[in-house]
């Protein structure tokens, strides 16, 4: 190949790659819901463990709002009851949404301390589930919510394995991964997630971290805050106040 041919081919390659790049649109910004702009929000949730009364209304509301199967092992959010006995042994039960709560088998005098801990998707800033998805069906939106593309998900369960908080499950009807998305359809309409809406004790707080006036901003300023499994560097956006060291 002489220099002329080499230059000719170089020009060809440059021109064709230019066409490819030029055709692919640079920005696909789209308005999702009338006045809703994803870039203006960054959502998080605050949970005050001391306020939770373990009534299970959040679990019930979540199931109703998001069409989660009513069987007691599919949850987008659930509440765990911790009982720490005098001998330091810990028992953890997920409470039921109905009145058929498991009978307290621990005698009152054996209980050292006991409390309820609501759990849900932590909407990590560094989400392991997004990292492992082989088809890119789960992703972080600009407003900080991890979403699942139900059309793209192949139901391989990789994300369910990867989540250190166990918040994902395979939906028995759609056969794709499902999890809490802060009731995304409510957020874009300016409403609170269903669990926050029904919480009788305001143990759950919801807010926008881009606004210091939001209830969450105050919650994070006024309380000693902990997140679940901080050593994993997942950087969760569900903040717990008054969390016991036994909770993980």
């Amino acid at each position: 190949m002489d220099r002329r041919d080499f230059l000719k081919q170089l020009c060809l390659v440059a021109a064709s790659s230019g066409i490819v790049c030029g055709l692919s649109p640079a920005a696909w910004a789209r308005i999702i819901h009338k006045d809703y702009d994803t870039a203006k929000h960054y959502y998080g949730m605050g949970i005050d463990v001391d306020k939770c009364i373990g009534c299970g209304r959040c679990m019930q509301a979540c199931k109703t709002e998001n069409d989660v199967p009513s069987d007691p092992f599919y949850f987008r959010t659930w509440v765990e009851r911790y009982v720490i006995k005098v001998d330091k042994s810990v028992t953890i039960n997920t409470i039921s949404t109905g009145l058929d709560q498991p009978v307290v088998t621990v005698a009152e005098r054996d209980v050292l301390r006991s409390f309820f801990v609501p759990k849900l998707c932590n909407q990590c800033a560094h989400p392991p589930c997004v990292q492992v998805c082989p088809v890119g069906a789960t992703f972080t939106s600009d407003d900080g919510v991890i979403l699942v593309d139900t059309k793209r998900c192949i139901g391989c369960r990789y994300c369910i394995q990867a989540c250190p908080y166990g918040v994902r499950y395979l939906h028995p009807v759609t056969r794709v991964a499902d999890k809490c998305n802060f009731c995304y359809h409510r957020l874009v309409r300016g409403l609170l997630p269903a669990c926050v809406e029904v919480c009788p004790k305001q143990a759950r707080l919801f807010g926008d971290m881009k606004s210091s006036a939001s209830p969450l901003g105050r919650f994070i300023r006024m309380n000693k805050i902990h997140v679940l499994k901080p050593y994993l560097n997942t950087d969760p956006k569900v903040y717990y106040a008054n969390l016991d060291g036994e909770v993980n």
Partner: protein
Amino acid sequence: MKFLHKLPEQAVRVIIVFVVLAAGMFVVRQFIMPPEMKETALIQSATMEREANKEIKYAGAEICGQCHEKEHDSKKSGYHRDLSCESCHGAAQKHVDSPTEVKPSSPTKRDYCAYCHTYNSSRPTGFPQINPDTHNPRKPCITCHNPHNPKPPKTPSSCTACHAQIERTKAASYHALLACTVCHTAPEQHKTSPRTVTPTKPDKREFCGKCHAQGSGAKGVPTVDMATHGEKYVCWQCHYPHMLGGI
């Protein structure tokens, strides 16, 4: 393109086939495939749109008050002020859409209140709880308590009006029969400016010692030798006076 002529003919054919295939794929990807299938940003915004368009079932607390003013107002000042209407009446967006056709449920039986108010040792102290087996069994809660403005049968007065949580804790402790004023003196202004004029609190071991020191003469009260018991600590570092017995 001189170097192509130097190659054997079959190699040139293979190259042509590959070039045609590659060109075909390029055309398919660039011109035939819709952008929704290949642009990550588009795929994601489509997902967000799909999620955003899902129908809501819980209408939110604001909207109920627009029609149900009476309930809304009576609830506003009561103990259930933080409780959303839909916590008890269930998801009501359908009722908002067609108010006459769809009616939300109204729990009238005992078991609904029990979700929150049954005694459970894991519930925070001070939260009003009852034992459904002994608390007026079989009687619906709403015969005595108005759910939109629930009140304890005895209206809280004096200290209890604000310090209900402490009152309920104290009611189950050994100090149940002691009035608040035995240990605290509240100036009259405390009622009007509670944060600027505060009641007194005991600040010395000797205060507890008035009853609990050996030889105090109080009947049925545990007594200790104040000189040796607890050393440098003040009593309430180990014994919380409002709490149920012991340490």
